[in-house]
């Protein structure tokens, strides 16, 4: 990366690889005690070329073969491509590590995608992947007519082939597909006419992409928009005919790190690894200059002023993120009143104070303040992204709190938007009604916290909230949000079982399962769906397979309301016991004593898992500070 440039292909938001990268890697491998996951993840959070990636991948395989990392979430990915995957594999493993995943890969031989999908005994189907990546471009799909007549290209057969592959992997491997959109061809046959004439490669590829955008999400699969990625790199840089002819590399080697990170973000999003909160520095980040020194008139934030426009673009981006459910916070070294001044009185400000869920302006160090922000929002540190123009602050936060994502920035504010959005911190696998109001809910939570301080007794406080709880079994309307909760809830989650969209659909119809989606509203607003329960029905005994709840409604006795409901329904069905399991992870300590608090008796422990039983004959429903809506 040369100074002054900020091109996505260089992964410019990541620090460069350390000069002693290999020595650091050897040190991790040599340490037989510590969990290697966070340390390798830290090494992977730099811009690594293929040779470094291969070294890191080898080290990870060596370590994983002796002991798994508790800090990483496993993901099994099948790979189907029309090119050589040998280089994609280590780079994908490293990119996945950067996003908190321990990736296990199973790749089909070149050109074997269809056979792999349709044969129940194929290598990929037997691998039981969580997802299969269909990394195909126009050269790997039946696009081109064999004879010399017009038209040379037709997307119909390609679309059919992709559908058949997706169906095959779903039916025989139980896996969702991640379908890549196809990059446009690098050359035109007619010229501009290619865009509008049916049968040209350009128009057929774009027609196929449009059809995929409709069809893929509808059937529970996900798109990976490689078309956009190739455009962003530039088609002329994306394709490298030499290495395609020599070694069947489907795109230029230089784009490999970016490609891998782009794919890994989607895997991370599926596993709930996406970040949730953007923390903003103020001086020289949201405006030019220092408010404490330059005053309201002195800061740069005017329309028509080039730098002012750049800072306004940063604010617009933050507001757009807030609109889609990303929480905004401020963390600035300033006096509180000074820091708030532009928000109140500067006409050029796009962000308002009410857009900020937590506003921290004081002279404490940034790392402690970031911890405080995470605490107040009840988010993990790994949910935060810090946008800060000061390289020393960035380095400090990376050292002290490696869980926080801190993008490197370019030479001026015109690169900040690309730094935040280009890094894909907020990648999402779905967009639901809850996302639309989430940022408001975090603010409302802060208000509830204030109310709590003024009420003495917790029950009084909870009653004053006037909560209403709604229960419903799983249904198609709730499916997207149910799947989202199942896959991203880490803390209040007793068993941490993850299910795909298709599996959730299966529970809707299953007579052997009892399911609940739980929504809560109160006088500050509607929290939407916040909890999910799945039980396996037995005649004597119901087993709680999954019970998870969003941290937004912690400490509000919602778990007691839910327990009442499960017990009542199990009893009505003639069961005598409800059994729960606690399976510890490094994140779900807050529910270690959940069953005990709810009056379950411990029956046995198998390894780290403990089992708890609720005797329905003896169970007395809890008195709860909420009304249950029918």
């Amino acid at each position: 990366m040369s100074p002054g440039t900020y091109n996505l292909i260089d992964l410019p938001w990541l620090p460069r690889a350390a000069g002693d990268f290999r020595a650091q890697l050897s040190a991790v491998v040599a340490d037989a005690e510590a969990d290697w996951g966070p340390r390798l993840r830290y090494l992977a959070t730099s811009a690594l070329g293929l040779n470094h990636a291969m070294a890191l991948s080898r080290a990870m395989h060596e370590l994983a073969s002796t002991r798994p990392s508790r800090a990483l979430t496993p993901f099994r990915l099948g790979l189907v491509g029309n090119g050589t995957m040998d280089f994609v594999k280590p780079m994908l493993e490293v990119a996945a590590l950067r996003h908190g995943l321990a990736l296990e890969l199973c790749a089909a031989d070149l050109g074997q995608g269809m056979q792999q999908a349709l044969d129940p005994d194929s290598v990929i189907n037997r691998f039981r992947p969580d997802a299969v990546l269909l990394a195909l471009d126009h050269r790997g799909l039946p696009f081109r007519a064999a004879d010399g007549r017009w038209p040379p290209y037709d997307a119909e057969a390609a679309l059919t082939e992709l559908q058949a592959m997706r169906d095959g992997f779903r039916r025989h491997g139980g896996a969702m597909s991640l379908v890549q959109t196809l990059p446009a061809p690098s050359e035109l046959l007619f010229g501009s006419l290619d865009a509008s004439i049916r049968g040209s490669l350009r128009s057929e590829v774009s027609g196929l992409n449009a059809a995929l955008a409709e069809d893929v999400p509808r059937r529970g699969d996900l798109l990976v928009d490689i078309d956009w990625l190739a455009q962003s790199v530039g088609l002329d840089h994306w394709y490298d005919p030499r290495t395609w002819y020599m070694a069947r590399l489907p795109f230029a080697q230089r784009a490999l790190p970016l490609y891998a990170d782009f794919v890994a973000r989607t895997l991370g999003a599926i596993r709930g690894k996406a970040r949730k909160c953007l923390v903003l520095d103020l001086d020289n980040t949201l405006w030019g200059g220092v408010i404490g020194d330059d005053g309201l008139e002195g800061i740069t934030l005017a329309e028509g002023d080039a730098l002012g426009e750049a800072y306004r673009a940063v604010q617009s981006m933050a507001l757009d993120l807030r609109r889609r459910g990303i929480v905004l916070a401020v963390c600035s070294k300033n006096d509180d009143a000074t820091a708030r001044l532009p928000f109140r009185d500067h006409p050029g400000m796009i962000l308002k104070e009410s857009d900020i869920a937590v506003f921290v302006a004081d002279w404490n160090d940034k790392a402690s303040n970031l911890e405080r922000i995470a605490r107040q929002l009840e988010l993990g540190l790994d949910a935060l992204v810090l946008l800060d123009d000061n390289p020393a602050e960035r380095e400090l936060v990376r050292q002290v709190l490696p869980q926080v994502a801190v993008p490197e920035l370019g030479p001026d504010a015109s690169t900040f938007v690309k730094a935040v959005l280009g890094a894909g911190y907020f990648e999402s696998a779905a967009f639901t009604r809850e996302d639309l109001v989430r940022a408001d809910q975090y603010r409302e939570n802060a208000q509830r916290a204030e109310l709590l301080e003024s009420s003495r007794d917790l029950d009084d406080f909870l009653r004053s909230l006037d909560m209403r709880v709604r229960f419903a079994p799983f249904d198609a309307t709730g499916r997207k949000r149910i799947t989202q909760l199942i896959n991203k809830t880490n803390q209040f989650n007793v068993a941490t079982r993850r299910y795909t969209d298709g599996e959730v659909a299966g529970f809707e119809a299953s007579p052997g399962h009892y399911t609940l989606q739980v929504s809560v509203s109160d006088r500050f607003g509607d929290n939407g769906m916040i909890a999910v329960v799945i039980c396996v029905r037995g005649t004597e005994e119901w087993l709680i397979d999954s019970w998870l709840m969003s941290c937004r409604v912690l400490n509000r006795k919602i778990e007691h309301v839910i327990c009442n409901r499960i017990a009542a329904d199990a009893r009505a069905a003639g069961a005598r016991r409800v059994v729960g399991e606690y399976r510890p992870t490094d994140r779900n300590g807050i529910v270690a004593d959940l069953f005990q608090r709810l009056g379950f008796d411990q029956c046995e422990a198998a390894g780290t898992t403990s089992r708890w039983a609720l005797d329905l004959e003896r169970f007395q429903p809890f008195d709860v500070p909420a009304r249950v809506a029918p």
Partner: protein
Amino acid sequence: MSTEEARVRLEQVFREVFDDDTLSVTEDRQREDFPGWDSLGHIRLVSALEETFGVSFSIEEIEAMTSIGRILEAIRART
């Protein structure tokens, strides 16, 4: 760039690509002398050479790089 300078930089590239800090690169050594230098190793080697020396080789040149001597020749012709 002198041949010796090119050889030293080439040695660094080899050590990086084949992950071996003890590799020594001399003009008389052949592709068979390096265990990691298979067909995919060749592609990685060429990518690293192009980046290090800031050049771009033709398919013919790439296929002709069967020894250290011939790589140095190709670099000389391009720089």
